[in-house]
C-alpha cells in the first residue's frame, strides 16, 4: 500500500517481511556479480614515498631562507614542472609504461597515475606543511616502485636546483642593484660636494659662525673708524700747528730779497680735515654706498685735487731762482703730517676692507635661507640614495649568508623519509569493498523494485487498510487457513474413517456438480 496511504512502522515491517527475498536475493546476486567482476579487473598497485621538508638549521632570525615563497605554491609549481612532457617522457620510455599507445596518451596516463598528497600537521608551522607523499599507480608492483623512486628523485633534485638558482639569482640581482645604487650615491655625493663648494660660507650650518664673524667685523669696523678719526684729528692738529708755524715765519726770497708773507693756513685744508672727519664718522655707521658717504668722498677728492694743484703758502711773487727756507719744526711737522696721511690711508684701506667683509658676511647671512632650501633637497636625495644603498648592502650580505647556508646543506631541504615501497597487494580492486558495494547496490535495487511492487500492489492487507479505504470496521481478521496443520486432537483418523465407508470421500469438484 506504499504511496496510497500513510504507513506506520508496522506496515513497513510487514512490507519488509513480505519483500525480504526481493531484498536479499538481489543483494546476494549483485554481491556475487561484483566479486566475480573484480576477478576480471586488472589489478593496480600503488607505491608511495614520504618526503619530509626539513627546516633550515639556523634560526630565521639570523639567516633568512633563500626562498620565502609559500611551500604549497612551490610544491604545486614543482609538480607542474615534473609532470611536464619533457620530464615524463624519459621515464615512460625507460620503464616502457603503457606500451602500444601514443606518446601523448602515455604521458596523460602517467600524469593521472601520479599523485602528490601533502601532509598537514597541527604542530607544523602555520604557513607550511611538514611533508608530502608521492604515489604512483601501475599495473605491476615493481614498475610502481621504480617509477615512484624516479619521480621522487626528480622532486628532490628539482628542489635543490630551484634553491641554488634562487640563491645565485638573488645574489646576482642584488649585486647589480648594489652597483647601481653605489653609482647613484657617488653622483649624489658629487653634487653635494659641488654645492658645498659653491656656497661655502652660506651653508645652513655656517650661519652661526657668519653671525659671529659679522659681529666681530662690526666691532673691528667700529674700532678702525675710531682709529681713523683719531688719526685724522691728529693730522688736523699737526696741520694746524704747521699752519701756525708757517704763518709766523718770514720767508725771503733769496733771489729778489723780497719778503713774502708766510702762507696762511689754507681753509681748504681745514675743510678737507673736516670733511674727512665727517667721512670717518659716517663710515662707522653706514656702508660705502651710503649717499652721504659717497658725497663726502667726492668732496674730499675734489678738495684734495685742488690742494694738490695749488698748495697753501705758495705765492705768485716767487720768482725764478727763489728758495724758501723752513725751520726744522716745520719739517718735522710736515713729516708727521705725511706719516699721518700714510696711516690714515692705510686705516682707510683697512676700513674699506672691513666694510667689504661686513658686506660679504651680510650677503652670506641674507642668502642662507635660499641656500638652505637647496641644500636640504640635495641632502634628502643623498640620504635616500644612501639608504637604498645600505638596504641593498644588507640584503646582499643576507643573501650571501643564505647561499652559504644552502651550500653547507643546512638550509631548508627535502628529506626522503621512506623510500618507495614494493606493494604486496593491489590497491584496486579491493574485493571485500566490491562485494559490499555489490551487496549495497543489490539491496538498493531490491528496495527500488520492492517499492515499485508495493506501490503497484493495491491489495488490502490489514485492518488499517480496510478502514483507510472503506471506512468500515473490521469485525474479525481471520488468519490464513488451509496449509496450517490442524490440531493433533482433531486431526481425523483416516484409517478409522475409511472403515465407516467413504466417509472422507473427497468432495466432487464444482465443475462436476454444475454439469
Amino acid at each position, binding site marked *: 500500500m506504499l504511496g496510497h496511504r500513510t504507513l506506520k512502522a508496522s506496515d513497513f515491517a510487514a512490507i519488509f517481511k513480505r519483500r525480504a527475498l526481493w531484498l536479499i536475493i538481489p543483494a546476494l546476486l549483485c554481491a556475487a556479480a561484483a566479486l566475480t567482476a573484480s576477478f576480471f579487473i586488472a589489478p593496480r598497485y600503488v607505491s608511495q614515498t614520504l618526503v619530509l621538508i626539513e627546516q633550515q638549521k639556523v634560526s630565521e632570525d639570523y639567516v633568512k631562507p633563500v626562498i620565502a615563497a609559500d611551500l604549497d605554491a612551490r610544491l604545486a609549481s614543482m609538480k607542474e614542472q615534473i609532470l611536464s612532457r619533457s620530464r615524463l617522457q624519459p621515464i615512460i620510455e625507460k620503464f616502457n609504461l603503457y606500451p602500444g599507445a601514443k606518446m601523448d596518451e602515455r604521458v596523460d596516463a602517467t600524469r593521472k597515475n601520479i599523485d602528490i598528497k601533502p601532509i598537514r600537521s597541527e604542530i607544523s608551522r602555520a604557513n607550511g606543511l611538514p611533508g608530502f607523499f608521492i604515489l604512483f599507480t601501475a599495473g605491476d608492483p615493481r614498475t610502481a616502485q621504480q617509477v615512484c623512486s624516479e619521480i621522487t628523485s626528480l622532486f628532490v633534485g628539482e628542489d635543490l636546483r630551484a634553491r641554488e638558482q634562487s640563491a645565485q639569482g638573488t645574489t646576482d640581482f642584488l649585486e647589480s642593484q648594489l652597483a647601481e645604487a653605489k653609482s647613484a650615491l657617488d653622483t649624489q655625493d658629487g653634487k653635494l660636494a659641488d654645492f658645498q663648494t659653491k656656497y661655502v660660507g652660506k651653508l645652513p650650518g655656517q650661519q652661526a659662525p657668519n653671525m659671529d664673524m659679522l659681529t666681530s667685523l662690526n666691532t673691528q669696523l667700529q674700532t678702525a673708524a675710531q682709529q681713523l678719526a683719531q688719526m685724522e684729528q691728529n693730522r688736523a692738529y699737526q696741520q694746524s700747528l704747521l699752519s701756525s708755524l708757517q704763518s709766523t715765519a718770514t720767508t725771503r726770497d733769496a733771489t729778489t730779497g723780497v719778503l713774502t708773507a708766510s702762507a696762511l693756513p689754507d681753509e681748504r685744508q681745514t675743510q678737507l680735515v673736516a670733511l674727512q672727519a665727517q667721512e670717518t664718522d659716517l663710515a662707522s655707521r653706514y656702508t660705502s654706498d651710503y649717499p652721504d658717504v659717497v658725497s663726502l668722498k667726492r668732496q674730499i677728492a675734489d678738495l684734495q685735487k685742488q690742494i694738490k694743484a695749488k698748495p697753501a703758502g705758495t705765492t705768485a711773487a716767487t720768482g725764478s731762482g727763489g728758495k724758501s727756507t723752513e725751520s726744522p719744526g716745520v719739517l718735522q711737522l710736515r713729516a708727521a703730517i705725511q706719516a699721518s696721511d700714510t696711516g690714515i690711508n692705510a686705516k682707510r684701506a683697512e676700513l674699506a676692507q672691513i666694510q667689504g667683509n661686513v658686506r660679504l658676511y651680510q650677503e652670506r647671512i641674507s642668502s642662507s635661507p635660499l641656500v638652505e632650501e637647496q641644500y636640504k633637497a640635495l641632502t634628502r636625495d643623498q640620504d635616500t640614495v644612501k639608504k637604498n644603498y645600505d638596504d641593498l648592502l644588507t640584503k646582499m650580505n643576507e643573501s650571501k649568508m643564505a647561499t652559504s647556508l644552502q651550500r653547507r646543506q643546512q638550509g631548508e631541504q627535502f628529506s626522503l623519509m621512506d623510500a618507495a615501497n614494493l606493494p604486496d597487494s593491489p590497491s584496486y580492486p579491493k574485493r571485500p569493498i566490491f562485494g559490499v558495494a555489490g551487496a549495497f547496490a543489490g539491496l538498493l535495487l531490491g528496495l527500488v523494485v520492492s517499492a515499485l511492487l508495493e506501490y503497484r500492489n493495491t491489495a488490502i492487507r490489514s485492518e488499517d487498510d*480496510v478502514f483507510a479505504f472503506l471506512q468500515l470496521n473490521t*469485525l*474479525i481478521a481471520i488468519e490464513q*487457513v488451509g496449509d496450517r496443520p490442524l490440531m493433533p486432537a482433531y486431526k481425523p483418523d483416516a484409517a478409522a474413517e475409511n472403515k465407516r465407508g467413504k466417509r472422507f470421500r473427497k468432495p466432487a469438484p*464444482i465443475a462436476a456438480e454444475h454439469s
Partner: protein
Amino acid sequence: MNRTHQELLRAALEDSASADGMPVSTLPGPRLTADIAAAPVFAGDMPGVPCRWRASLIDLPSLQPRTAVAEQFRRLRSRLLEYRAQQPLKTILMSSAQPQEGKSFVAANLAVGLNQHRGTRVLLIDGDMRRYSLQRYLGAAFKPGLADYLAGTHAPEEIMQRADAATLEEFPGLAHLSFIPGGGMLEHVSDLSEDAHFGNLIRYVKPLFDWVVVDSSPVTLVSDAVNLARHCDGVLLVVRAGVTKYPDAQRAQAELQASNLIGAVLNAVEDRPAPSYYGYGPAGADA
C-alpha cells in the same frame, strides 16, 4: 413437524404475506403447506431433511473448539450479537468484491459458530447460484437446493437439510444447523435473484431460526448479491488480505450502498501471528 410448529409456520407465512401484499398462494416457488405434514423434516424441532454430512475440519475450523480461527468466528459471533442488541439483525448476507475471497468459508464457519452458541438455530443458505460451494464445507448434497426452490419445483422444507444422527455423533457442533444448498444450475439467475421468491423464503425461514446466513456471489461481477441483500438485515463484506484490491473493495462497497453494510471480515491474513495464548493456535494446547 409437530402441530405447534405447523401453526407457528402458518402464522408466520400469513404475516409475511400480508406485509408484502402478495397472497402466498400466488407464489409459484414455495410449496409451503401442501406437503408439510408428509415431509419428515422437523425431527427434534430442527427444520430440514436429515442428511449425512461429511464435514471437512480443514474447511470448517469453527468445529474445533480451540483454534485461533474458531476463536475469531466466536468473536465475530459476539460482535454480531452486540450489534443485534442495538438493531434488528437476523439475516446476514456474505459478499465480496471478487470471487475466491472467502465468502463461503466465512459464511459456513460463521453459521457453525453461531450454531454452537447456546443452542442457537442457524440456517445457512448458499445464495451463490452461479457457483455454489457451501455443500463442500459440510460434505452435503448440493441438490435439491435454492435453485430448485426458486424454480418452483421444491418447497423450502424439501430443500432444507440438517445433520443426521451419524453426523451429529461425529460433529456434535452441527446439531442446530440447517443448510439450503445451491441446487442445480439455473438460467436467468439474475432474474431469479430479483424475484420476490427469495424474499418469501427469508420470510418463511426467519421465524424458524435465530440466524440466517446467506452466501452470495461477488457483488462487482453480478447483481445477485445486491438483489439478495435487499431481503437481509445486514451485509458483511469479506475482504481477502493480499488479494482484494482496494478499488474493487470500494466498488463493492458502492454497490452495497443501499444495504446495511455492517462491517468487513478480513480473511486470510498472513501477517497475524497465530496466538498461542491459552492454547489457541497450531502449537497450542490439545497437542
